[in-house]
């Protein structure tokens, strides 16, 4: 019996690859297994090569592994491209109509399993597009699971389409299941153990976790121009905006998007935008407007490989320094970089309070891997949302007669904030330099004091910033450093290294900016060997750490081929 299995299905776009993966994830997570799924697809709608990889485990795990235990091929290309990811004892399920694999091309003891998927659907008068459902049935058999775990999910998935469609899908899946049982019934190499804690889990992708966090954080207004990889956030908001009591608007471009969100925020509504690097490039001017007008704003930036259009449907961590330095003029901002869906949820919720408290833009820096991969988390993660905090927002009752929106006296630089409709709260949210009431000024003394006031917020933020989260052995011989989604693969690599007898640690920056340089220096200086792991070509986190703490991390593992890190690759690239 196994406690972890990696499964991959591949075929053309339009073959239902992604839906097969997400159904498998749900089927197992409902029975208490830990699951994840990561998709890879080109930037087109039909054709091309699409795959989704699913991990199913009886214990928690943090990322997928590169080696495949089961490969399901819905075309010949899938067999050709992914043979090098197989290992001794992997199973390959293929349709003899597509391909005749030669066992000498595969690692020793690979089981080549011919499943006539085209014939099966034909015999049941189903369409060829339902071969993915045959494959799902076959998978359940190969993993030694009960067929009913699949019927559950099929019923949910096709609920809106009615009983006929549900029955048809179940019949097709059953045929796939039976096909394996009859011919390959004795194969039990990848039977899964029972899960240790068979209780409720929630399954969502990173974008959805950001969305749920935002909603719990009081978000009421989102203006989002479509862009990979944040599109499922739009779907979540549009599908449920009525019941949620929120407004989602599709702006004409990202420039309009950020300006609309700023407008809504000025009017007193918690607002957000979401985009990727290219869209954010258009928003930069607006970011600067939120800086000088001190308007709370949350920006979800899902990174993908640039420059320019780059590789739109792949992943990278290339925008950290861009985000830190974006916007003309000098002003404070906060950058959070969640490492998994739990952090996507928690940090997105916190982001809105931080934006309200400090009246600054707050970034949720995600990436394609995190946003579009499907993850599961214990339901308890979502149990107790915090009450949103309004910071120094004043109301008709609490406003003082001599209210000044940009009062320069607070030592933390944070002034009281009124919203339109409040009788004594009139002011100008002014993109020009302004005095305490918001009136335009070019007076050198006021300019300096107002700049100081805004920059004092940065000092206040730093003094309240959390220290990086530390995982692993306190007394480690090797210490990884990372931000964002690299956390998962590193934690998995650490498990493998631990089995090899190596003591390792991870210092993870899910709060990545601004950092307290002195504290950081103390933290990092005592480490024996620091290894920076990033998904970009220049080591942007290492540069930031060097800039604020003076600690120069020499050893860097950098990946920028559009794919996420895998634990095996981290170990392969380490020097021993």
């Amino acid at each position, binding site marked *: 019996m196994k406690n972890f299995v990696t499964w991959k299905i591949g075929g053309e776009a339009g073959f239902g690859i992604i839906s097969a993966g997400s159904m498998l994830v*749900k089927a197992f997570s*409902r029975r208490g297994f830990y699951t994840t799924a990561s998709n890879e697809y080109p930037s087109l709608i039909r054709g091309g090569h699409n795959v989704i990889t699913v991990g199913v485990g009886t214990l928690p795990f943090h990322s997928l592994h590169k080696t495949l235990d089961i490969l399901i091929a819905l075309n010949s290309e899938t067999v050709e491209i992914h043979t090098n990811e197989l290992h001794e004892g992997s199973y390959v399920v293929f349709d003899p109509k597509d391909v005749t694999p030669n066992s000498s091309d595969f690692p020793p003891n690979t089981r080549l399993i011919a499943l006539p998927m085209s014939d099966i659907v034909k015999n049941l008068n189903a369409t060829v597009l339902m071969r993915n459902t045959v494959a799902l049935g076959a998978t359940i058999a190969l993993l030694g699971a009960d067929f009913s775990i699949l019927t559950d999910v099929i019923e949910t998935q096709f609920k809106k389409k009615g009983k006929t469609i549900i029955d048809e899908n179940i019949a097709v899946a059953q045929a796939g299941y039976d096909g394996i049982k009859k011919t390959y019934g004795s194969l039990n190499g990848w039977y899964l153990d029972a899960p240790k804690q068979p209780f409720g*889990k*929630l*399954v*969502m992708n990173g974008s*959805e976790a950001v969305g*749920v966090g935002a*909603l*719990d954080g009081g978000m*009421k*207004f989102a*203006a989002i121009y479509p862009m990979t990889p944040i599109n499922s956030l739009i779907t979540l908001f549009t599908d*449920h*905006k009525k*019941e*949620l*009591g*929120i*407004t989602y*608007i599709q702006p*004409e*471009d990202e*420039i*309009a*998007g950020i*300006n*609309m*969100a*700023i*407008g*809504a*925020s*000025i*009017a*007193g*509504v918690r*607002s957000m935008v979401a985009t990727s690097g290219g869209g954010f490039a258009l928003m930069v*001017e*607006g970011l600067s*407007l939120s800086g000088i*007008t001190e308007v709370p704003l949350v920006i979800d930036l899902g990174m993908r490989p640039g420059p320019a259009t780059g590789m739109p449907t792949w992943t990278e961590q290339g925008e950290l320094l861009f985000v830190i330095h974006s916007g003309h003029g000098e002003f404070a901002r906060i950058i959070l970089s969640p490492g998994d869906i739990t952090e996507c949820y928690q940090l997105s919720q916190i982001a809105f309070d931080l934006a309200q408290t400090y009246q600054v833009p707050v970034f949720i820096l995600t990436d394609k891997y995190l946003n579009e991969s499907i993850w599961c988390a214990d*339901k308890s993660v*979502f149990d107790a*949302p915090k009450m*949103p905090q309004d910071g120094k927002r004043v109301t008709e009752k609490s406003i003082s007669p001599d209210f000044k929106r940009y009062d320069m006296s607070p030592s933390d630089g944070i002034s009281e904030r009124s*919203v*339109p*409709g409040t*009788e004594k*709260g*009139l*002011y*100008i*949210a*002014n*993109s020009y330099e302004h005095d305490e009431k*918001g*009136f*335009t000024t070019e007076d050198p003394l006021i300019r300096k004091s107002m700049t100081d006031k805004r920059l004092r917020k940065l000092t206040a933020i730093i003094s309240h910033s959390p220290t990086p989260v530390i995982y692993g052995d306190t007394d480690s011989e090797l210490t990884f450093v990372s931000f964002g989604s690299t956390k998962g693969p590193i934690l998995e690599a650490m498990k493998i290294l631990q089995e090899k007898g190596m003591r390792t640690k991870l210092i993870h920056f899910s709060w990545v900016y601004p950092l307290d340089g002195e504290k950081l220096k103390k933290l990092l200086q005592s480490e024996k060997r620091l290894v920076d792991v990033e998904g970009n070509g220049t080591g942007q986190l290492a540069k930031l750490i060097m800039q604020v703490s003076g600690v120069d991390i020499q050893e860097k593992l950098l990946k920028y081929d559009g794919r996420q890190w895998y634990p095996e690759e981290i170990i392969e690239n380490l020097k021993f």
Partner: protein
Amino acid sequence: MITSDIYKTDITPTWCPGCGNFGIWMALKNALTKLAVPNHNVVIVYGVGCHGNMRDWMHVYGVEGLHGRALPVAQGIKLANSKLTVIAVTGDGDCIGEGGNHFLHAAKRNPNITVLVHDNQVYGLTTGQASPTAQKGLETKSTPGGVMELPLNPLSLALVAGGTFVSRGFAGDIPQLTEILAKAILHKGFSVVDILQPCVTFDKIHDYGWYRKRIYTVEPQKEKHTALEKSMEWGDTIPLGVLYQEQKETSEDREAVARTPLVDFPLGIPKRDDFLNMFQ
């Protein structure tokens, strides 16, 4: 009884003597007075340009945005709090040049806001380059041999893009402009007021006299295509007034929160358990 003075601050305007902006400023204060909108329920979003300097002289909630971006900010405010009277004060370079795309899409969406286009054919604040509405042949700092192309027409653009209140006023006729602005603010939908405004410093051709010789008032057109025809009339005669008005669903009407302003909604997820169950 309120007077228009309640809408002004005690800061002295810095526009050039004789600038058309004075007339527009006066007409706007008059219109607000006529409608008796409380100061704290008015938000004016300004573009960047000579027109935008009005922000310091108006005693209401003000937002001085970025050049060309007044309309998205104004739409965000209105969607967040539909009780507010939201007005965008913009310029021709600002709204038709840098912000042209926002102008078209605002007309398409029909938010219940009013936009004033201070239309003087030049970029005054950067010392007199040609704007997108500059007439062909106009010699400016950036077009020493005269503007080569035909101008963009804010009214035609608004009509074609779906604007539901399309009008033109003249900075030199404050009573008529007051009337038009009051109607525009009352109109439920996207109201465009293109305002012919002499730039006494950088355009020596289109002065008050030039406009006075040509302008006349038209009645609202029943059909959009005749309104479009009127909007393109320019030369010996230039029509003023409300060219076209129709009632259509607004941006705010389309929102689930249309009846209660978004700003008054409770925070958090209603029926949270049901919502989260979706992810099982």
